[in-house]
């Protein structure tokens, strides 16, 4: 193969470091961490100096940096806040693709010639974004052959020199000294399946232990050896390390007639109304692509107003952009546009909404088993859930997530299915996700039925007086009778046997979140066992050992 002729497309990548922190409105000069599912997603430079790192548990990061400010992660907020940045780049080229909030890319071929070369273009892009950020965050720009090398170049930029331009053909030499961990920068769109993200992380780990500590060292290994040992992901990593464009060859530009559009009459001024239409449009797009065996990885959303203003944005996503995911991105885009500054805000309602599939790949959802039957059910599951969520609302469809806690309901919570990627592994759903001990929690078995809202109960002693638990954690009298709420049993049942109390002192350091509770297990005359909890002098039914 003629390697010299094969070179990545010149790409400019704009990268705003620590974007989730910036989007949350926090100052980068304070120790801040953005946390999702108990893990750090992003942190400010100050926090990083204190030892906080991505993927760290919340508690661990707080112990390393006690004054750390913890903020919740909100992908919607990240995307909304990034909208002005992406809009600023529209002044340079119409083909800006946002692959994730905080990072945007475009091909430089046209704009570079217009603005007099890559260097002036990069400088201009950095200046435009810096203006759009209004001093809230910093920006780094990289230009190189291929989006991976450009992303690496953007990481090498520094506040003093916000733009790094790699000479054409020089990308391999440029990225050679970079650490092998840089492979994790690979864009999601290059991975066929969501699960490959973890494979890349594992690959980086293995390569490091094999002594291939830089991209250059990996590039020097024969491509066939890497493919034989590490499969397609390894081959992809090797192509990237050689400074080649990693875009898989199976990405196609779809036929223009696949675009779907809807006229909005009367014009819609509210985001919610437009999103409603977008959802139906996305369903249509999904179906027509599905009929051709295609899945969309980049979609262009175009909104036009009554006064002819047009807003276009490209959205990339790994694997499959489901109908719900497309509707979500329309919401982010329109949120950003309609609530933007007065100069960029549209002056009239939206009259037309178009979804254009920009890049498609062969759909992999339905792989049939050898003798019929599905071997991979995820895609069908995802589709069925999207349908049910459409009927009942997004909140009605949830998946379990282990959180830790003392009560059975706290230990495993639920999270809306729209917020997770079912195709990927979900370690948060495994009981070993939460490793910390919870003093005062009851040992297994847990109650098979828990009451979503605690229901009042009464616990009485032999003489009919209410039973209490003292401040020292001892019970005032042996429970002799309990009165349980409606769905379980009405009236008073005699207690056959009981155990407890298990006192639990929660968040004693926190004046508002402080709770003192005590639990007892009781078995009533019909053989049913229940878990009761006492708080602030009142008993509640917490669960039933069904």
């Amino acid at each position: 193969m003629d390697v010299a002729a094969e070179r990545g497309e010149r790409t400019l990548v704009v990268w705003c470091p620590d974007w989730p922190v910036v989007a949350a409105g926090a100052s980068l000069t304070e120790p801040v961490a953005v946390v999702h599912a108990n893990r750090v997603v992003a942190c400010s430079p100050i926090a990083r100096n204190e030892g906080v790192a991505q993927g760290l548990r919340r508690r661990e990061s707080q112990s390393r940096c006690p004054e750390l400010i913890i903020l919740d992660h909100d992908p919607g907020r990240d995307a909304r806040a990034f909208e002005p940045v992406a809009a600023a780049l529209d002044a340079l080229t119409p083909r800006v693709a946002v692959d994730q909030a905080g990072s945007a890319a475009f091909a430089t071929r046209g704009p570079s010639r217009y603005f007099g070369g890559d260097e002036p273009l990069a400088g201009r892009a950095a200046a435009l974004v810096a203006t759009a950020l209004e001093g809230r965050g910093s920006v780094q720009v990289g230009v190189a052959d291929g989006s991976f090398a450009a992303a690496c170049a953007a990481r090498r930029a520094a506040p003093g020199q916000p733009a790094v331009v790699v000479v054409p053909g020089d990308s391999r030499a440029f990225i050679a000294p970079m650490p092998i961990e840089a492979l994790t920068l690979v864009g999601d769109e290059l991975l066929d399946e969501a699960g490959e993200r973890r494979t890349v992380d594992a690959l980086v780990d293995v390569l490091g232990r094999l002594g291939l500590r830089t991209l250059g060292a990996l590039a020097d290994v024969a491509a066939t050896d890497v493919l034989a040992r590490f499969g397609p992901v390894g081959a992809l990593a090797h192509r990237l390390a050689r400074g080649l464009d990693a875009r898989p060859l199976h990405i196609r530009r779809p036929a223009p007639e696949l675009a779907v559009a809807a006229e909005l009459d009367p014009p819609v001024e509210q985001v919610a109304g437009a999103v409603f239409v977008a959802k139906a449009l996305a369903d249509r797009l999904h179906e027509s692509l599905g009929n051709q065996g295609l899945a969309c990885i980049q979609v262009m959303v175009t909104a036009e107003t009554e006064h002819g203003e047009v807003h276009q944005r490209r959205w990339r996503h790994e694997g499959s952009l489901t109908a719900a995911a497309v509707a979500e991105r329309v919401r982010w885009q329109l949120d950003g546009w309609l609530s933007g500054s007065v100069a960029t805000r549209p002056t009239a309602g939206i009259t037309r909404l178009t979804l254009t599939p920009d890049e498609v790949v062969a759909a992999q959802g339905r792989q049939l088993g050898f003798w019929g039957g599905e071997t991979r059910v995820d895609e069908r599951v995802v589709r069925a859930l999207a349908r049910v969520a459409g009927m009942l609302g997004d909140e009605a469809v949830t998946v379990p997530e282990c959180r830790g806690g003392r009560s059975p309901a706290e230990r495993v919570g639920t999270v809306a299915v729209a917020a997770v990627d079912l195709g990927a592994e979900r370690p948060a759903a495994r009981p070993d996700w939460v490793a910390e001990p919870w003093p005062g929690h009851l040992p297994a078995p847990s109650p098979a039925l828990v009451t979503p809202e605690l229901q009042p109960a009464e616990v009485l002693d032999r003489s009919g007086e209410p039973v209490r638990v003292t401040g020292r954690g001892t019970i005032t009298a042996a429970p002799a009778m309990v009165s349980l709420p409606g769905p379980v049993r009405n009236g008073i049942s005699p207690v056959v046997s009981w155990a407890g109390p298990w006192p639990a002192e929660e968040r004693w350091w926190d004046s508002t979140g402080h709770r003192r509770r005590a639990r007892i297990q009781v078995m009533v005359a019909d053989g049913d066992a229940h878990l009761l909890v006492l708080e602030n002098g009142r008993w509640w039914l917490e669960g039933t050992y069904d």
Partner: protein
Amino acid sequence: MPSSVLHLLGDRARPLALAAERVLPVSPPFVPVLPGGGLRRGSVVGLAGPGSTSLTMALLAEASRSGSWLVAVGLSRLGLAASAELGLDLERLVLVARPEPSRWAAVTAALLDAFEVVLVQPTHAVRPADARRLEARARDRGAVLVQTGGRADAWPHAPDLSLTVTRAAWSGLADGHGRLHSRRVTVEVQGRRQAARVRRAELWLPAADGSVALVAPVPADRPAPLVEHALEVG
């Protein structure tokens, strides 16, 4: 000519491949209890009695661990921590809030399309037409529809397989000390057609070590587990 040979080969090999696929696997204590040694795909299973929630989760744990997706519709009080302790893989469990009765059949039908196990707890009487439609859908997709708890007469006719807990006794609690640690349950299993005779089994649900186990081997007079038509190779 080559295609007809392939067809022949396919026909010969098919029953072997399907026999293993016909049932969803269950954990060892349930194998001697269930007709066919597993949960037959395309069937309706009903569970009732005290402890039926735990029994359901223990019954489905093996299928979930071996890769089947489960969805629970309207089981608002399901204890997820307990489900995990009984061996269920929470990574492949999805919970759907209880739909209003008018939408219940549509939601369940949509889920039967994709999930291998659909867990329902109808609180209203299911119309016979809806029930027939759902049963046909489950048969068509090879899914198992499981009713646990809820209204006893919700399903218009008897399920293909019913498991009823007739007796459940916890042990471990004393007056003011100890803790619940094990439960002994008596389960009656009744199927249709060949399996119409009631089988009775005593289980630890759970045993003191947290596992699910048979108290004693199932009586030996039970019929041998159903063997699907083995392939006849000349």
